[in-house]
């Protein structure tokens, strides 16, 4: 990998720490979490709050389900040439009671995954531009 700076592929959706977190919001009134962030209106039908605070979501959870991408997705996805298939996991976060999708780190396949497997959030390159390396959140099996 080059010496280019690493920047988030999508600005403000996760921290850049060694142990990164997704950044969501939480309704000050009812406690519902939102990812992506929601700061204007609460989507809980029993709540009409407009007050939210930014929160770091749990960085670990369990696999709800998983799959892979064997074909190159269309733009705006930026594919490596040649295209290398990658695994995808839907991970259930216990505290937030929500499921978040993401790629699984490079080098792992669906054979390495199982429903219920504990996972943690990490950052990995999504693609490279002339100026920088765009990184995003990915899931990797939690170190035991």
């Amino acid at each position, binding site marked *: 990998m080059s010496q280019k700076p690493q920047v988030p*592929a*999508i*600005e403000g*959706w996760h921290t850049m720490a060694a142990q990164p977190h997704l950044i969501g919001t939480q*309704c000050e009134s*009812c*406690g*519902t*979490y*939102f*990812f*992506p962030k929601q700061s204007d209106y609460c*989507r*809980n*039908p*029993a*709540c009409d709050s407009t007050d939210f605070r930014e929160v770091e979501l749990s960085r670990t959870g369990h696999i*709800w*389900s*998983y*799959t*892979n*991408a*064997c*074909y190159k*997705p*269309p*733009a*705006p*996805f930026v594919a490596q040439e040649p295209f290398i298939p*990658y695994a*995808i996991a*839907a991970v259930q976060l216990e*505290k*937030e*009671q*929500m*499921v*978040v*999708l*993401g*790629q699984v780190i490079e080098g792992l396949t*669906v054979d390495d995954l*199982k*429903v219920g497997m504990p996972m943690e959030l990490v950052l990995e390159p*999504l693609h490279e531009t002339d100026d920088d390396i765009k990184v*995003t959140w990915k899931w990797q099996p939690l170190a035991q």
Partner: protein
Amino acid sequence: MSKEIAILGVGMHPWGKWGHNFVQYGVAAAREALADAGVPWQDITYVSGGATIRCGYPGYVAGATFAQALGWQGAEVNTSYAACASGSQALAAARNKILAGECEVALVVGADTTPKGFLAPAGGYRPEDPDWVRFYLGITNPTYFALYARRRMDLYGDTLDDFAAVKVKNSRVGSKNPRARYRKCFTAEDVAASAMVADPLRLMDICATSDGGAAIIVSSLEYARKIGKANAPRVAAISLVTPTFASAVVEMPDIATDSAAAAGVEAHAYRASLPVRAYEEAGIGPSDISLAEVYDLSTALELDWIEDLQLAPRGEAAALLRAGDTALGGKIPVNVSGGLACFGEAVPAQALSQVCELTWQLRGQAGDRQVEGAKVGITANQGLFGHGSSVIVKK
């Protein structure tokens, strides 16, 4: 007061990859439906079109586009866009007009010309658009179908053979449907030999996108009696409910489910809620159903729908399939049109095509695909952004 309306006529332009403008398919379907109903075009006072967003500006004004193509004659028009439920929403609009006493007989029509391959969003940097986000991160439509399929394997013990068996079943019956796009009888070996797209789903587990058009002539029961069609099949229910917060299942195009962390909030599965309203409205239950047309975007999803429609207890749809119960001649045939597996999805026409099939079946006109003694049929589909529908048609 009865909320039923009569189905006087149905028509479909064959599904395929014809490369024509969508209006042509809609007009062909409409003319077939009018002829089938024996109703002159000039007698139609309401044209309700299912819109497509992929056919440019005219797609946005589909009702008027079809009315103009058939020849302006002063009818009122409506255009509905509700993703995969567009046709059902257009049908509901016509039903409302009829039940309000403002229209006796209406044309409902939807048609589409679809692009090849993945359905992709507009470019740029648009993180506020969930569709843009997921494609940027490498999550396409088959990703979602595959996540659901894998979960069935893990929770219920469904196998790749089960998924292939859905394709084999649907292709066998679809081969007898002259309006289907794919009419080859595929084998389990064919499915297994097709390329993996999103594990565990192969190319032949996932439906294509097609060109197609479907149309329905609906009327008040009084009008049906007046023209000697008192025994025409009836629309007994149209459910168009939206989801209930919080979503239990991650749905296209979202990158995450809702959070069910707040007090008093439970996670709800949207698909299963769609037929509940339909059964209530029709005043019948799952045991009354003779056949079902469901949205098999993937083979595994047909099994999910069977359970969502309560035609099998949760987790037992594959057992029904293995016993041959969901095949033509079985206890509860599913997708005897051939389903999306044989048609490919033509979004604004697809929900209407499901109702067309039920109509032919209930009239006993389905030929080699006929379900013996069919009395009540149900459809189900789900699309993007909280759109879905379930329609019940009965004799």
